[in-house]
């Protein structure tokens, strides 16, 4: 079952990559996967990871990269704001999601009569903690986006790379979905005062679904962002 899910996810991801990146090749120096469409009109591109200046030519559909030079001066921002800001949402968001899953499980167990009310209103505390975690992680992602754009401007010299475009798009999606989830959470439409999820009305169930979908979507986006970010640092 798990293997099937992984295979399916792999297939979907492969299809997306093929459609989005088009023909790709690996940087012969750092092994970072580069999209041929990122080359300029002369077939030149600079690897964002290692700075190899590569000329590409397609022969019989095989992309043959030739390293012509190495770009040595690649400014690294002194404060490293982007790497630090990145890890705040990556670290906190999954914890918030775990809290939501716990609250969801508690709601169902309560509904089935398997557990009583949580003593001392612990679930409501957990719901509040989730909200705080969401606010911090989504809020920090604003700093991540801003510092990422700063890096792109200086370190990557505004060169367009498929990966960086995807990162920017994913960051915006993460912010939008995160903001939506926070708004739903804070509005009281999703959680009752007890901390349990509202399942007593159609509006409540719809709000729950929207909230969970936004969080799940954000988690996928965050994983994608983390993966792309990791390859931009380490190459392979």
């Amino acid at each position, binding site marked *: 079952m798990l293997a099937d899910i992984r295979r399916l996810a792999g297939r979907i991801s492969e299809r997306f990559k093929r459609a989005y990146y088009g023909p790709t090749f690996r940087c*012969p120096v750092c092994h970072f996967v580069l999209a041929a469409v990122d080359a300029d009109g002369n077939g030149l591109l600079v690897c964002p990871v290692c700075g190899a200046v590569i000329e590409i*030519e397609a022969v019989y559909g095989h992309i043959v990269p030739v390293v012509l030079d190495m770009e040595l001066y690649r400014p690294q921002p002194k404060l490293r704001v982007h790497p630090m800001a990145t890890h705040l949402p990556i670290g906190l968001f999954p914890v918030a999601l775990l809290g939501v899953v716990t609250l969801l499980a508690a709601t169902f167990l309560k509904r089935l009569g398997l557990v009583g009310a949580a003593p001392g209103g612990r679930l409501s505390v957990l719901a509040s903690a989730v909200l705080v975690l969401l606010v911090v992680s989504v809020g920090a992602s604003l700093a991540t986006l801003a510092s990422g754009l700063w890096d792109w401007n200086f370190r990557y010299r505004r060169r367009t790379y498929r990966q960086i475009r995807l990162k920017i798009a994913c960051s915006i999606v993460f912010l939008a979905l995160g903001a939506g989830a926070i708004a739903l959470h804070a509005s009281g439409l999703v959680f009752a005062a007890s901390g349990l999820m509202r399942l007593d009305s159609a509006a409540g169930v719809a709000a729950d679904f929207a909230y969970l979908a936004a969080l799940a979507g954000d988690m996928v986006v965050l994983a994608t962002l983390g993966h792309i970010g990791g390859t931009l640092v380490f190459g392979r």
Partner: protein
Amino acid sequence: MEFNLTPQQQERVEAAREFTREWISPNAAAHDRSGEFPLEICREAFKRGLMNSHIPKEYGGAHEAVLDHCMVMEELATGCSGIATAIDGNGLSQYPVILAGTDDQKRRFLAPMLDELMFSAYAVTEPEAGSDVARVKTTATKVGNDYVLNGVKWWITNGSVASWYFVLARTGEELTGFIVPAGSPGIVRGPKEINLGQHASNTVRVTLEDVKVPEANRLGAEGKGFDIAMATFNHTRPGVAAGANGITKAALNIALSYAKRRRTFDKKLISNQGISFKLAEMMTRLDAARFLTYKAAWLFDQGQDNAREAAQAKWFAADVAMSAAIECAQVLGGYGYTQEMPAEKLIRDAKIYQIYEGATEIQKMIIVSKLLRMREVH
């Protein structure tokens, strides 16, 4: 003597080249790394009429000439010889049926392969019988109207995906050919072998345990299996040589593209005579291998004996491909030794051409056997 391609041949070659550029080359490295069978690519090749093209017209096929097939095969193998082998693997098992099958067998086993994507496999090699086919140990015992087959077939290309197999088995002292549906009880397909190269090609072990095959699936008369299996090679060896030529062409193209752009000692790599001569030699050897291949194919199409020429083409093209792949890596220098460039894959892929469908030494034995029958060579 005519060296120009006909408009139809030109059209066919260009169609194969376009397919290679669009489907094979961009996916070659991924399939080489994963070892996944290129089913989607085969499906597209099937749609474009690049599979099963040699099936006779009366069974719905195009009855493509071997010469035309060689040109197509060269194009496909320029993209990836492993994927090309997966696409073309059917030919090896279909030809015994074309050669010795009854009308009923052709209708049952060849015609359906034109309706939907299906694979078949040539199951002759065994762990103890490779080049020496006469050592085949698999037995076929007559029981009523059926034969019961027992044995182990080894390194069977397309073995996991095949719908039927051409199986060579021993009926007493002689060898006999059978068409064995893959769904027959008693057939066990082994895991994919991890080979040196051609990772996209599916090679497995196929075990036959008390597999019942009706007499209607016997190919030709009892004891004619060895002749059928050997005659098949006269048809397929030019195609194998063409596959090797595809590797040579890929190696030459990659080396040329690299040498024209890479700079060393303040000049283009190709400006160094040591490098440019390698390219000149690769080009010349490729043409020589092509001419041998085309002649062997043309002779077959004319209905003439091409055993010697097919052996010459297969041996020479395989050696040329091997040396071209090594020279390609040499031109690329350190990059040629890495997995990020296609040269190392070409070396791994080329090696099998010196081994399968009769090792180089077997080809030379065939050539010598033909020479022994000649008083003088003209």
